[in-house]
Every structure is written in C-alpha cells, then in structure tokens.
C-alpha cells in the first residue's frame, strides 16, 4: 500500500516539476523559480539524510546541485522522467563531494539507501534552509570581469539584456554568452571551494 502511495506521489511530483521545468525553459521566470524552489526542498531533505555527519555542508551542496541543474538543463532528454534526471544529478554531486571530502568507508554509509532511485529524493522535502557558508558576492568577485558584469547586471540588478549590452558596450549575444560562461565558471568555483 505504502509503495503505491509513493509511486502516486512521485508521479504527481513528476508532472508538476516537469511542467514547471518546460515553462522555465521557454522563458517563464516565475515557473522556473517555483521549479528550483521545490527541487531545493527535496535536495535538502535528501542531502541532510546522507550528510548527517557533515550538517554544515548540506546547504552548500544544495546550492552546488541547483547550479549544476541550472547549467545542465540542455542535457535533459525529454524521453526520461525529469525526477530521474534531477535525482541522477543530485546523486552525482553527492558522490563527487564525498569523493573529495570524505573517506571511502563513509562514502558507503552515505550511499546505503540510494537504490530507491528517485523515490529517495522526492519522497521528502525540507523547506527550512540551513546556512550556506559561501558568500555570493565573494564568489562573483572571483569571476572574470566580463562574466561578472554580465551576471550582475542581468541577473541581480534586473536590467534587460539590451540595457546591459548598452551599458557594457557589448552586443546582446555577447552578454548572453558571458552570462552563460559565467554560470559555468561559478559552478567550477563552487565545486573547488572548501
């Protein structure tokens, strides 16, 4: 019985997130925001269980996974359930973190339950965010000027691409490319930071 409920729950989550994800991909900011917020709650609960020995790291890794999801959206193959795609990325980021930070035995501890697949990720949610130790401004400061300026203007100050292009004396497509590259660089910085 419980299994059936879980499957139902997963299917509902799948439909909802999938719709939001596609709307986001078509340029709907609000839908995309709801997708990320909802995904973050699942990531948080999932990672909190598996990183019980490193509670301070959970929020950092939630953010790293969110940024990875954002940057890898092109790799989503619409024939696959979106929940499976998100789960696979979250698991990859978890393993990657453990490989770099933990000893081998604890890697097995943390991954004991993962056989449940995407059920393990989407069966629980945790809205209350812990503190991430990273500072966004500091992270952005590490980016090359062009990438940082493009991100700050279009993503933080709320300028349109055209306005940012005029301000930075770049073409609109150069702004877009800089934003895109900057987000990739940011992911590398996030992954490399302790």
């Amino acid at each position: 019985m419980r299994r059936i409920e879980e499957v139902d729950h997963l299917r509902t989550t799948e439909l909802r997130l999938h719709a939001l994800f596609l709307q986001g991909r078509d340029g709907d900011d609000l839908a995309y925001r709801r997708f990320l917020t909802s995904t973050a709650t699942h990531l948080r609960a999932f990672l909190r269980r598996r990183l019980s020995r490193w509670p301070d790291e959970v929020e950092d890794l939630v953010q790293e996974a969110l940024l990875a999801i954002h940057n890898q959206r092109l790799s989503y193959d619409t024939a696959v359930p979106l929940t499976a795609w998100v789960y696979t990325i979250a698991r990859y980021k978890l393993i990657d973190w453990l490989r770099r930070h933990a000893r081998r035995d604890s890697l097995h501890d943390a991954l004991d339950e993962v056989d449940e697949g995407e059920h393990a990720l989407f069966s629980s949610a945790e809205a209350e965010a812990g503190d991430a130790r990273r500072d966004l401004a500091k992270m952005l400061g590490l980016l090359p000027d062009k990438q940082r300026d493009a991100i700050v203007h279009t993503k933080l100050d709320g300028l349109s691409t055209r306005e940012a292009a005029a301000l930075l004396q770049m073409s609109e497509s150069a702004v877009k490319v800089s934003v895109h590259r900057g987000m990739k660089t940011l992911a590398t910085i996030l992954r490399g930071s302790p």
Partner: protein
Amino acid sequence: MKTDDLITMLSSGPDVALAARPARATALPLLGALIASALLMLAILGVRPDLGLALTWPAFWLKLVFSLALAGAGGLAVKRLGAPGAGTRFLPLLIAGPVLALWAVAAVALWLAAPEWRSDLFWGKTWRYCPLLIAVLSLPLLVAALHILRGHAPTRLRLAGAAAGFAAGATAAVVYCLHCPEMSPVFVGSWYVLGMLIPTALGALLGPRALAW
C-alpha cells in the same frame, strides 16, 4: 549566500529561456576529428591499392558494416551516458550483438577452412600493428568524443570515458578499413576488436579527470 538568493539569481536574466543545443556543437568536432583521422591514415598508411576491387567483395563489406555498427552503438552509448537518468541497460547488448554475429561468421570460416589455413585466418599478415594503428587513428576521435561529452552531463565518468573511447575506436576502425589488406572475419573479430579496446581503456582512464563537472 542564502539559497533563496541563488534561486532568484538563477531564475532571472537571459539564461532562463533555453534554446535547443545547436547540432553543430556535436557535428563540427566529430567532422573535424573524422577528417583528422582520415588524413592521418592517408599520410602514414595510404588507401589499399585495390580498394575498387575490394568494394565488390562481401568480406570487405562485412568488415566495414561490423565497424560501422559498433561505431553507431558506441555513439549511442556516449549519447545515453551523457544524459542523466537515460536508460543504458540495452547498451551492452547493442555492442555485443555485432561482435557475437561476427564471431559466429568467424567460427564458420574457421570450420570450413582447411586446418593448415586456420592460423593464417587468425594472424593474417598485419596482426602486429593493426590494433596499434586503429588506436592511433582513434586519438583525434577520442579527443572529440570527450570534448562533446564535456558539453553534456555524464554522471558515470569512467564508463562514459570508456564509451567515448570505444566509439572512437570503432570509428577509427571504419577509417582503417580503407587501408587494411586483411579480409578474414577471424582477423577482424580479434585484432580489430583489440584495436577498439585500446582507446576504450584509455577513455576509461581519462574519464574521471576529463569529464568531471
């Protein structure tokens, strides 16, 4: 940094909307590597002088179709392993299929051959350098395959690297077919396969470092 702030940043700006991946992102590196591999073959080996005649022999086509089938299977493996959550369970079967089919043909060829000819069918005249040459021709293709994979999101890095190497090796075997003087399916089923396995191992070795994200 609050996660909410990160989400706000992610969900605003010009990169919320996402255009489909342009086909050239895959096609250009692939084409470039294929040309490099073919030029390498022409420069160090040259096309077999009787290629026109060989085109009329079933043994030549068997070799070519075998390599093409594995190149296709390898390419699909790369594609699947670069898409998180995509099904991969059928891939071993897809790769084993052409190999087993060729081995069956090879077994029949060995069985039909006079005993004193059997070792020739296996060793041919070029077994010493055939696998190595296929491996050399596969290098530009391996670089391209890893580059293409880096644009995707492989999560099993060693396996994805191996798939890239295998696809490169099988594609290099297609190129090598145009030079290779051997016609025996027994030869192809052993030394060609060995030649494909060298870049496969190399890809598996490089994967975890080259593909991490």
